[in-house]
């Protein structure tokens, strides 16, 4: 039998399928209808069924079977074309996969059609993001301190991100919203890091907060401006026309309008509509009384652009370190291989304050096993890393500490009472300090200070055979004993790229990263649980890493 006959037969055999009919074959799919009879249903339900020929494999990320009914469009998890959103388990057997998918459909019917259940989590409205002027336009927003009231409107300031890229094969122009400016002049700044706040403001837009989603059935975004007529205050339409008048010299230029609404009790979303200066969807006409009225152009379609919520919680929602780490003010002294990996990992895991200190220069040969990049060329490690961290997270604040402070000044003066107090004070301004310098003298000097902040020392042996992690106050003695007496640190086989004055250890990025990530995972876990922070050594390689606690 062929695919058409197989599928039709197997669907007919499913117990709650009353009837499978009108199935026919097209080039890439077969399609037909099914009538489902389920005990809880007062009457059978009919669906159009489309089965792509790659079935039971998926089509890209989507199920390659579709169940559609435009009659059910008001129910949860039904798309604009009436297809039910089902996600089912992988299977390569046609019969089993059909069973899975029809049982999923049955479950949807019971839960959302019969039970009329609503989900606790927010379901984003379905937006048909359009190409405008042959390109996509994206805008990212983040949290601000203030809230908005229904009907309020004002200006928006915008900065571009990196130059034009591509999105689904077409050009895209990416932007971030910098601030919302209320009509009374109050400026509501988005909570980006200073790096992004300092970006040039090159574009303007405007906003209006309408409170509820601009969508039918709470999920299908409006397609025509007339759909918004009841949501947009008259004063806003006037404001919009005045705006157009003000910038009319830029006729034809894209002008973003951000429409805000609540997604739950504490979050809002901004959906951008792309207007063209000189062709705003607003018309003014004079009433017989002489008074001007504003209306939206009825047949004009809305060109929706791309907006993304990049608030801290969304940005790091998929995974981050414990708040007992991410909220801490952190200093990393020494940003070589280990230190730069620590900095980058902390940044990707949601840390907000990471200062760095190092007097070293980045050379090309540093790149292969640290977090530095070739395109920066030669330069101070700290400055390059500061930029790299900022390119990863728009929430991390990174300052570069005076390069001489740790490797020179503290060692010179740490025994002098006044200086000692100053060093303690400056370090105690941080919550958590990582010493990744491998400088024994600095380790000794830091250990002798009376610190309130947490101090963690990280270093590794040649070939990255072991990583030693020590917590203040038992750092110097423990680490020295490990390297002096306990660990087998073979320093006869080192890499001497430019002579005996600059030997360095041998280990790949992967060798070092394995140890660093394992160590950071343990540190995160210690802070999260509040457990005692005992020194530890990680030894072994590959999947055989072993943590030895001291």
């Amino acid at each position, binding site marked *: 039998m062929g695919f058409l006959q197989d599928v039709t037969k197997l669907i007919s055999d499913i117990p709650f399928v009353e009837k499978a009919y009108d199935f026919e074959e097209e080039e890439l799919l077969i399609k037909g209808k099914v009538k489902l009879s389920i005990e809880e249903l007062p009457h059978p339900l009919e669906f159009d069924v489309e089965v792509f020929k790659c079935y039971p494999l998926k089509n890209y990320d989507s199920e390659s079977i579709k169940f559609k009914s435009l009659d059910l469009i008001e129910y949860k998890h039904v798309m604009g074309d009436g297809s039910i959103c089902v996600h089912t388990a992988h299977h390569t057997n046609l019969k089993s996969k059909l069973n899975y998918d029809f049982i999923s459909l049955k479950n949807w019917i019971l839960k959302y059609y019969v039970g009329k259940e609503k989900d606790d989590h927010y379901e984003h409205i379905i937006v048909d993001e359009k190409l405008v002027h042959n390109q996509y336009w994206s805008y990212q927003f983040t949290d601000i301190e203030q809230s908005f009231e229904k009907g309020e409107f004002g200006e928006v300031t915008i900065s571009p991100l990196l130059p034009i890229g591509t999105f689904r094969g077409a050009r895209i122009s990416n932007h971030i919203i910098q601030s919302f400016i209320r009509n009374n002049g109050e400026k509501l700044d988005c909570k980006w890091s200073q790096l992004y706040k300092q970006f040039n403001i090159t574009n303007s837009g405007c906003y209006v907060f309408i409170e509820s989603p601009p969508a039918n059935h709470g999920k299908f975004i409006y397609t025509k401006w007339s759909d918004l007529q009841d949501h947009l205050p008259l004063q806003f339409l006037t404001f919009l026309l005045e705006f157009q008048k003000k910038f009319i010299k830029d006729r034809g230029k894209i002008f973003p309008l951000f429409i805000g609404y609540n997604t739950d009790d504490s979050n809002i979303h901004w959906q951008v509509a792309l207007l063209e200066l000189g062709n705003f969807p607003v018309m003014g006409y004079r009433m017989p009384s002489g008074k001007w009225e504003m209306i939206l152009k009825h047949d004009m379609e809305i060109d929706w652009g791309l907006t993304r919520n990049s608030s801290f919680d969304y940005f790091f929602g998929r995974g981050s370190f414990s708040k007992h780490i991410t909220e801490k003010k952190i200093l990393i002294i020494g940003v070589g291989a280990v230190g730069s990996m620590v900095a980058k990992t902390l940044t990707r895991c949601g840390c907000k304050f990471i200062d760095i200190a190092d007097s070293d220069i980045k050379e090309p040969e540093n790149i292969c096993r640290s977090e530095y990049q070739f395109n920066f060329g030669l330069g101070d490690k700290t400055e390059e890393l500061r930029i790299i961290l900022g390119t990863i997270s728009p929430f991390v604040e990174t300052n570069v500490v005076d390069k001489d402070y740790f490797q020179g000044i503290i060692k010179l003066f740490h025994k002098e*009472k006044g200086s000692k107090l100053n060093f303690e004070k400056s370090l105690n301004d941080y919550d958590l300090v990582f010493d990744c310098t491998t400088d*024994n003298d600095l380790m000794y000097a830091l250990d002798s200070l009376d610190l309130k902040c947490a101090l963690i020392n990280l270093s*590794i*042996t*040649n070939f990255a055979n072991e990583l030693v992690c020590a917590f203040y*106050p*038992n750092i110097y*003695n423990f680490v020295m004993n490990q390297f002096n007496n306990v660990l087998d640190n073979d320093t006869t086989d080192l890499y001497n790229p430019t002579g005996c004055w600059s030997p360095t250890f041998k280990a790949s990025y992967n060798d070092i990263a394995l140890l660093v990530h394992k160590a950071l995972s343990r540190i995160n876990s210690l802070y999260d649980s509040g457990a005692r922070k005992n020194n530890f050594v990680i030894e072994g390689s590959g999947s055989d890493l072993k943590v030895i606690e*001291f």
Partner: protein
Amino acid sequence: MATNKQEYLQTVLETHRMSHVEDLVNKFKSKRDEVKDALTSHYGSQIYSPFDSGSFKKHTAINTKFDLDVVVPVKRDSFDTLDKMFDSFYDFLSDEFGENATVRKQTVSIGIIFEEDSDGDVISLDIVPGRELSQDQYSNDKKLNLFVSSDYGIFSSSTYIQTNIQAQIDHIKAKDNERKIIRLLKIWNNNDGKEFKSFLLELITIKAFDTEDISGNLWEKLQQVMTYIKDNVTNDSFKLIDPGNSNNDLMDTLTSWGRTNLSSRMGTMLDRIESNSDNIKGYFPTNSDFEEEDKSSSSGYGVKTGAAAFSTPPDNQRFG
């Protein structure tokens, strides 16, 4: 090369002997006498003779961190209340020494930290005023009531505690073996975050010796005491009665987590030292200021031979 734990611990104790800092100790004693004289002169017949206590008196002091304690027995009728006594001592010491020292209220004592002298030394003394329970009773049984400041300790409001400091001193008299183990545990504790009171480590060591047959060389004795601590402190029924007050159980100063932590620290240390004898040095450091030169060579307890090589990095080189 494996470490000879017995020899190593002897070196640890040797480098922590108070005799290495004799000049400094003399400065402490001189300041202590100055304060004693001032108190005697000021309070006259209101007090009995101040006497020395603390680790100096008990011979359990170590030279990396120490202060001198002076107990001042106060006659019952001298003050209406203990807090008035405590405040009076604080006020007097502040007036008398505040110009050149930081004077502060502590749990049961008044701390005096003198400014750094020309040698860079800082002298600190703890003065413990204690009032006899009833008029003239002190001469008979040495019992005193100490004021406990509300800002410190496990007490939520200001209160008092009855004690007999002389009995505490007598409790450790002529116990040389115990003193060595106490000093070692203090060295460990100072190096490991100072989580535990020295008095607790002192009482638990004495109890281990009293309860178990602690014998062998220094390492073996330490090992047995550590094992005793590991095995016993998590038992709810385990008590450490203060020899100065039978109602005072030092174990009450530890939370349930604190008991588990102490037991766990002992267990981890024993395991690590068992797996590699060199790890003993990470827990019980020598005082490098007083290590003999030859002990720093490859044959001793310091760095390995490779550390002294030139043109190639030492084998204690760390990387990162």
